[in-house]
């Protein structure tokens, strides 16, 4: 008789489905309770929309013919002063005049759909992505330098690194952003974007520094001894031997740090940077689709962080080749 027992999985799968369904029903009942009217149809236009161009009558006259062509209509207007009639094309749905109607100069006849425009949600998403990317990159460089200073033999470098790390880790990011923008930003005349990126970079740099320090210290001493015994300098040993191995080891915590950074970047909306969060807030003031927009914003953050986390997972597996 085999000692290994196979336990049935289906009751647990069933339970999982029941719990998820229960949560969904609960959510639905909750929104019913507050009499919330869902207007999901309002959301897509905030990703991208077609510009609307109002078409007006070029002169006073009479509409003599309306000929539909697809979802557009051609409105022909005969001027009072007897010259050639003019044809104006508008969307049929927006048509404001009837056949035989009198129009004055500049009267709106209808609307013509123009070019596609990028909506505020897409713009905000883009701002969030590039601010996070730039801050992550700068933070990484700061973290690497600080991490190296942190384990340096030089007391000054070590002291400065410890002070910086403790200052950043011991204060809230929101406060750091305010200080960076209102104090440092004012003194140095910094643009709000620069201030935002600066605050985020310094924040992520402090955490990255500790991760990198731990990574470097986790590499066995024998590795640098072997490199030094071959005549490599301390810097060459760091670049060719220690850092590549350390980087591979700290990739999972670094990934977590960058995913946090994307989410933390929402705090720069407090200094009026129109990132995804601020765009969401602005849209709500005009659309009143509060629940829909916040859910959409949350979903967008989720998409970005999932993509990043997949990307880093892939990188991790590539590095595992030598194991």
């Amino acid at each position, binding site marked *: 008789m085999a000692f290994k027992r196979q336990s049935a999985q289906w009751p647990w799968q069933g339970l999982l489905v029941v719990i998820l369904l229960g949560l969904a029903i609960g959510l639905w009942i909750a929104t019913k309770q507050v009499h919330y009217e869902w207007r999901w149809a309002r959301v897509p236009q905030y990703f991208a929309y077609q510009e609307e161009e109002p078409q007006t009558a070029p002169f006073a006259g009479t509409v003599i013919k309306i000929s539909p062509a697809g979802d557009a209509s051609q409105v022909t207007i005969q001027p009072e002063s007897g010259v050639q009639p003019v044809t104006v094309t508008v969307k049929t749905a927006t048509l404001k005049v009837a056949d035989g109607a009198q129009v004055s100069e500049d009267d709106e006849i209808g609307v013509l759909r123009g070019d596609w425009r990028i909506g505020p949600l897409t713009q905000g998403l883009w701002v969030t992505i590039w601010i996070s990317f730039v801050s992550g990159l700068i933070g990484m460089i700061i973290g690497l330098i600080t991490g190296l200073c942190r384990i340096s033999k030089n007391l000054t470098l070590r002291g400065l690194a410890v002070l910086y790390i403790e200052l950043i880790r011991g204060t809230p990011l929101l406060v750091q952003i305010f200080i960076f923008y209102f104090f440092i930003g004012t003194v140095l005349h910094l643009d709000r974007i620069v201030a935002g990126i600066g605050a985020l970079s310094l924040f992520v740099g402090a955490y990255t520094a500790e991760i990198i320090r731990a990574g470097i210290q986790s590499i066995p001493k*024998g590795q640098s001894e072997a490199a030094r*015994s071959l*005549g490599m300098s301390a810097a*060459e040993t760091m670049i060719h031997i220690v850092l590549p*191995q350390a980087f591979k080891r700290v990739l999972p915590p670094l990934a977590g740090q960058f995913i946090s950074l994307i989410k933390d970047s929402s705090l720069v909306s407090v200094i009026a940077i129109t990132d995804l969060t601020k765009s969401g807030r602005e849209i709500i003031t005009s659309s009143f689709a509060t629940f829909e927009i916040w859910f959409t914003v949350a979903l967008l953050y989720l998409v970005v962080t999932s993509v990043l986390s997949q990307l880093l997972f892939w990188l991790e597996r590539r590095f595992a080749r*030598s194991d």
Partner: protein
Amino acid sequence: MIEVNRLIKIFEGRDYVVRAVDDVSTRIAKGEVVVIIGPSGSGKSTFLRCLNGLEEFDDGQVIIDGIDIAGSKTNLNAVRREVGMVFQHFNLFPHKTVLENVTLAQRVVRKRKAAEANEKAMALLTKVGIAEKANEYPSRLSGGQQQRVAIARALAMDPKVMLFDEPTSALDPEMVGEVLDVMKQLAREGMTMAVVTHEMGFAREVAHRVLFMDAGKVLEDAPPARFFTAPNEPRAQAFLKQVL
């Protein structure tokens, strides 16, 4: 080739002071193979590590090929290029292939072109009998194979001296032979070698001189024939009785 004068290395902890190397003086001539033996904790590894400056010593002098390694104007990295070292735990670079392990320092330190470094590496890997593993990562190799790669890596720098720090101590018994064979071949080719080992057979067969260390001091310095048959020191006699 190597001259050691009154070398002292002290380890100081919170409540202990160990004189790991205590007033050691010796010379190793060009082409000479010197084996250093002694009980564990006798300071033989520390002594060896002082010879290429991996361990900073407290007092005394180490002169390699006429250069005082502790001299204020000495470029220690330049000295280390000429002194190869093989470690007990191999210390291969796990993120580099076998070939890259052997070419890296050639390219970085000796500034050799890729083709030249690869050629040199393949020749050495062939010499230590492991050329067919050139593109594997070290983790795929057995201990004996890793140690032979480590020897090839050190030899790739064209060292004038080779230091071996218990090169077979971490190996399974059946792999000791293959590493010792490579070392014997090196000795026959006239390489200057300082070897810390517990392999008495190797000492007897290959060494020109045996140094016996205990408590940081060199107690015996004799050709193997005399050391293994008639040591002067009672501690050497006791040690040999235990290991032979």
